[in-house]
């Protein structure tokens, strides 16, 4: 299993007095992606993430964040998590273990545009890894996780379950989902509307390279069904910076259009339009009360996961249990 790089210095302080994990402790994505098995890859990320938490000097952080806290004399030993003790040789108390489990749906966009890559792996692979990581993490928390892999239609569907073998099936479904042609959220949304009897959490992993009006309409439909929605935008660094140099015939992976482009001539304009689209997306998510996060494929996954959970924690949300009161719309994005 690839190890994270040794950390030899403290990370910067986070708001609320919490300390960030030390720099250098995250796993390089290129290294991570060499792990062929998706479940293993996810496990590495989660374990590394959790071990990072263990080394945090601020005790309250992990307890609140992960629903674990270090054992203090006088705690009720019924809530001691013996598995964690077996793994970590430390005592932790579980909280809200008996509360209703969270239902989480992972919507993974596997259209052709997600097949773009300038690194050794494409966005789809990265998205699958993020999805697998979240599924693994949620399963550890005994939450029900479902999967909808889609392009212009639904390619894989697994209802939200917490039972033996479900995680494995989910990983298999992710590994084998083929890359489609175009992107259409309508089909997965209808599927969720049909099958999700209870409200839960919907995590959408996509590059969201579509007109804002379409995205806004489709995300609005998701929110109208009452689910809490988190959008994780997966982008290749080249899509953000447009760092190409040679004049080329650019080929749209989804529409098949061709365009002669001199990157040096159009870079500034591309970045402006890209940023404008991102702002519109941010505004749309904000208006709909949707949390939005952006992940570049060259970012370490565990760092991304850390930032995601941290951000939600700062806003009073827990990436686990749903409160009885509906979630208030808060500003999304990083």
């Amino acid at each position, binding site marked *: 299993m690839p190890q994270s790089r040794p950390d030899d210095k403290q990370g910067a302080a986070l708001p609320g007095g919490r300390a960030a994990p030390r720099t250098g402790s995250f796993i390089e994505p290129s290294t991570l992606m060499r792990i062929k098995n998706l479940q293993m890859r996810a496990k590495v990320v989660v374990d590394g993430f959790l071990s990072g938490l263990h080394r945090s000097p601020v005790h309250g952080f992990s307890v609140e964040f992960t629903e674990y806290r270090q054992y203090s004399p006088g705690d009720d030993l019924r809530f001691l998590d013996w598995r964690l003790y077996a793994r970590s040789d430390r005592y932790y108390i579980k909280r809200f273990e008996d509360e209703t489990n969270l239902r989480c749906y992972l919507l993974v966009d596997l259209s052709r545009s997600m097949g773009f890559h300038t690194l050794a792996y494409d966005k789809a692979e990265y998205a699958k890894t993020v999805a697998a990581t979240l599924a693994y993490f949620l399963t550890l928390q005994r939450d029900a996780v479902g999967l909808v892999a889609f392009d212009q239609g639904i390619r894989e569907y697994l209802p939200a379950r917490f039972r033996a073998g479900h995680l494995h099936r989910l990983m298999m479904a992710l590994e084998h989902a083929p890359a489609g042609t175009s992107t259409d959220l309508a089909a997965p949304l209808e599927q969720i509307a049909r099958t999700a009897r209870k409200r839960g959490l919907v995590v959408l992993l996509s590059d969201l390279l579509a007109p804002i009006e379409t995205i806004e309409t489709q995300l609005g439909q998701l929110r109208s069904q009452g689910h809490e929605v988190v959008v994780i935008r997966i982008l290749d660094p080249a899509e953000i910076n447009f760092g190409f140099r040679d004049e080329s015939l650019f*080929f*749209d992976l989804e529409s098949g259009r061709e365009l002669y482009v001199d990157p040096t001539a159009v870079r500034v304009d591309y970045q402006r339009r890209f940023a404008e689209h991102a702002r519109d997306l941010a505004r749309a998510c904000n208006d709909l009360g949707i949390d939005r996060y952006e992940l570049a494929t060259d970012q370490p996954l565990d760092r991304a996961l850390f930032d995601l959970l941290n951000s939600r924690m700062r806003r009073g949300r827990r990436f686990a249990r749903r409160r009885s009161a509906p979630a208030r719309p808060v500003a999304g994005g990083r």
Partner: protein
Amino acid sequence: MGFLVPLYLAGLAALSLPVILHLVRRTPRGRQDFSSLMFLAPTVPKLTRRSRLDQLLLLAMRLAALALFALAFARPFLREAASFSHADLPGRRVALLVDTSASMRRADLWQQAVKLAERELGELGSQDDVALYTFGERLQTVIGFEQEGTETTQAKPQVIRQQLAALKPGWGSTDLGTALVAVAGEIDSTSDVRQSSLEPQLVVISDFQKGSRIEALQSFEWPKRVPVVTRPVQPARRTNAFCHILPDEEEQDGADARVRVVNAADSAGEQFYLAWSGDEPQVKGRHELAVYVPAGQSRVVRLARGTDALQADRIVLRGDDHPFDNTFYAVPPRKEQATILYAGSDGPDDANGMQYYLRLAVANDPLRQVEVRPLHTIGDLPKPGESGARLVVVTQSPAGDWTAGLQSYVEQGGMVLVVPADREAAPIVPALFDDVDLVAELRRSEGEYALLGEIDFTHPLFASFAGPRYGDFTKIHFWKQQRFALRASAVTRAVARFDNGDPALLERRLGTGRLLALTSGWNPDDSQLALSSKFVPLVGAMLDLACGTARVATGGTVNEPVTLPDLPGSPAFVVVAPGGLKIDVPAGSRIFAATDEPGLYRATAGTNEIPFAVNLAAVESNTAPLELEQLAQRGVPLGKSVSRAERTERVRQQRDTELEGRQKVWRWLIVAAVGLLILETWWAGRTERTIAESSLRAA
């Protein structure tokens, strides 16, 4: 080599386009897959330092194709060796039509016209034929067209110059339409008949005033190949007004006149003055009447003669720039002397008699000074050949043998009117009218009367009553009449009858005179005739019948025939024109047509002298310019005269067009261009495929 449309050679500038495109064109280094093109715009090719020409062979083919297209559109042709000069120009048949109407007398218009004509003559070539026409009211051929190729063609311009020097404007009005139609028809028919290759052309030199008549153009189909070149002449100063006398509705003695003053539409001046005038200095009116007339309008004023202008025969207007139409001629008032011999027992002051009313009826005749003299004996009647009384009125049976004397008088041209005053005078009627019998005297009781029931309004005595307004005689009652009856084969006729059928007015022609008889008197005891409004004109008609009409044809216009009065005996007239020229009118004719100039004419026949005035036509004074578009609207093709150089160029162009039409070099150029394009398309496709394959291999 020449080009028919060299402007298209500017299309060769488009050759720079493929060069630029080749310079700016970028060959992509390869192909790049990308997630979405939604944030990308195509890069516009531009010239940079790195620009260089690619694909030289393709560039050359494209340039060549464009050049061939540009050359083809320019319609090239191979010129023939012979050059084209003025001598090769086809000849023209030029008709000069010069206006000689009265309005050309203004200022220096005629001099301008002559200069323009000479300029046209100067433009003529050796192949050109020319003719000179003048027009006013009528067209006149001064010098006509000749046969082509005759020697006179070359000498004609000089002849025309001589004729022009002798011409001058007349006094007629302007019939431009008829003149144009006639000359155009002449040119066209001449060209057709002789199958002439000469190009016809009509040059009109005129002041083109609004008073010109152009109605004749309305129904004329203008020959297409006869263009019209207009050469207008205009005076420097434009103010022009004219005057004319309006006829009075009421009978006036002619001392005063109602005068209309008309100011032309383009006049600058508005203040004019009128005065009576004549040849004799003493009749020149000292009293000018000021008249203000804005441009384009008219005013009517009353111009009094004054005692010192009683014999003035013209009204002169002053205040405008052109005096040609400033004089209006009018016959001065003059009363004819006439004598009526009256044979009756009643005195001139006897209000119960007929003489009294007869004298009253003729007292105020504006055209005659009538004297009523008593006729005592037959010897008082004028002898044959003597001038004297032309009418004898007999109311009482005269003593002695009057019958033969009166009949002789009538046969010699006199007129006798018999009106028996009583029963005793009645037999004179059957004595004079041998086919009329006296029946009885009829006196109606109070309250009873007869009316005139049947009247021959075609008779000169009743002609003036022919209208419905004047023809009602039912208000004239007759209480006493002498009843006469016409025999079966009577020559005498009843001009009027009473409502009981009895003749009221009898007439018999004897020799050159007339016998008339009224069967009822006009005095109040007999009837209401003398007291009616019809009595005076009836007596006037009798005097006209007896003495001949004294009215002359005033208001005649130049070149219009004048009808002279019908005098007894129909004598032959000799007319003295204003210039003093004497013109004989054919015997038996009363039409005088030689009214060539305005002024007072005097027609004399024997001892009779009848003056009449001839004036300019009023339309000729309408000197505002005519819009030449009106001619074009009526189908006249107005063209511009072209100089010899322009004609040479035009004919050269025509020859080049024919040459190019025969050679059709443009077709071969188009074929070559299309072939090149096909080759270029194939080569470009081949090149594209090569590039695509190499980039795929590189990817």
